[in-house]
């Protein structure tokens, strides 16, 4: 479980925000080293946001570092209107998009996006049996790669919402704030992302049993 989640679960939200507000004041008063203490619980969150957009580890690390440094320089302007973590994710998201624009990678993505829209019903594929997956499954590199690849294949409009809602566990309102889209769009895109991911992963994770075909077990357990 990501460290930031453990922080979130073990510390009541109000106490967490009070602690963070105290750390922020100290950083702004010149205790620069305290800044690492402030961002450390969110390292993975920042990295996961970055890699979900730029898709490769080297660029993701660069984006994550840039985002953290930018957060430092803008910290005196942080008014606490959003949670510190949401604010940090928003900066990371903007940095990652900037990186893509600079590399012109969005040109390739936009073609993908044009083939998808938020309207119309999505018909899920007919995989008849998808039993619960044990949590140990993600200890395998192969399984992690499979899930990451499936996420990377999603059009960015779906991938970004999925990462913010289901990986970072941001609320709908926080996701609205980071992406600057409507609440309805967040829900529709998340729904589509989850179904697309399920369709993409189901045959590889569990074998498939499509009408008219024999069940083929491929899971190692």
């Amino acid at each position, binding site marked *: 479980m990501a460290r930031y989640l453990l922080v979130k679960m073990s510390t009541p939200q109000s106490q967490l925000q009070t602690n963070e507000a105290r750390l922020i004041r100290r950083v702004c008063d010149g205790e620069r080293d305290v800044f690492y203490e402030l961002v450390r619980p969110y*390292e993975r969150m920042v990295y996961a946001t970055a890699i979900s957009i730029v898709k490769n580890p080297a660029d993701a690390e660069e984006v*994550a570092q840039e985002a953290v440094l930018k957060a*430092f320089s803008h910290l005196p302007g942080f008014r606490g209107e959003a949670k510190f973590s949401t604010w940090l994710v928003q900066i990371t998201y903007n940095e990652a998009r900037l990186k893509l624009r600079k590399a012109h990678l969005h040109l390739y993505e936009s073609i993908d996006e044009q083939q998808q829209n938020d309207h119309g019903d*999505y018909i899920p594929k007919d995989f008849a049996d998808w039993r619960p997956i044990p*949590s140990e499954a993600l200890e395998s590199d192969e399984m992690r790669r499979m899930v990451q690849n499936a996420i990377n294949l999603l059009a960015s409009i779906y991938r970004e919402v999925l990462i913010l809602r289901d990986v970072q566990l941001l609320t709908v309102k926080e996701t609205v704030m980071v992406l600057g889209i409507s609440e309805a769009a967040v829900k529709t895109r998340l729904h589509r992302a989850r179904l697309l991911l399920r369709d993409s*992963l189901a045959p590889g994770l569990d074998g498939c049993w499509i009408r008219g075909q024999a069940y083929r077990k491929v899971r190692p357990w």
Partner: protein
Amino acid sequence: MSTIEISCVEVWREISNYIDGDISPELRERMEAHLANCAHCSAVMGGTRNVVGLVADGRLFQMPEGFNKRLYSKIRGLP
């Protein structure tokens, strides 16, 4: 009072909201009545739940080795 039936398409449309607990009790009841009798929709629901569980697992995105040390060193190098 009997539950008003709901179609597969209506169930698919609401699966994500169902998982997030973002539907009315009435709709939840109708969906559950449908899921109890529809193998395809149950599989779609099960698969989607699996996806949400897998993606939410913190182990999915492993940070590169030395990431935090390099980040800390960048912070220490700030003017």
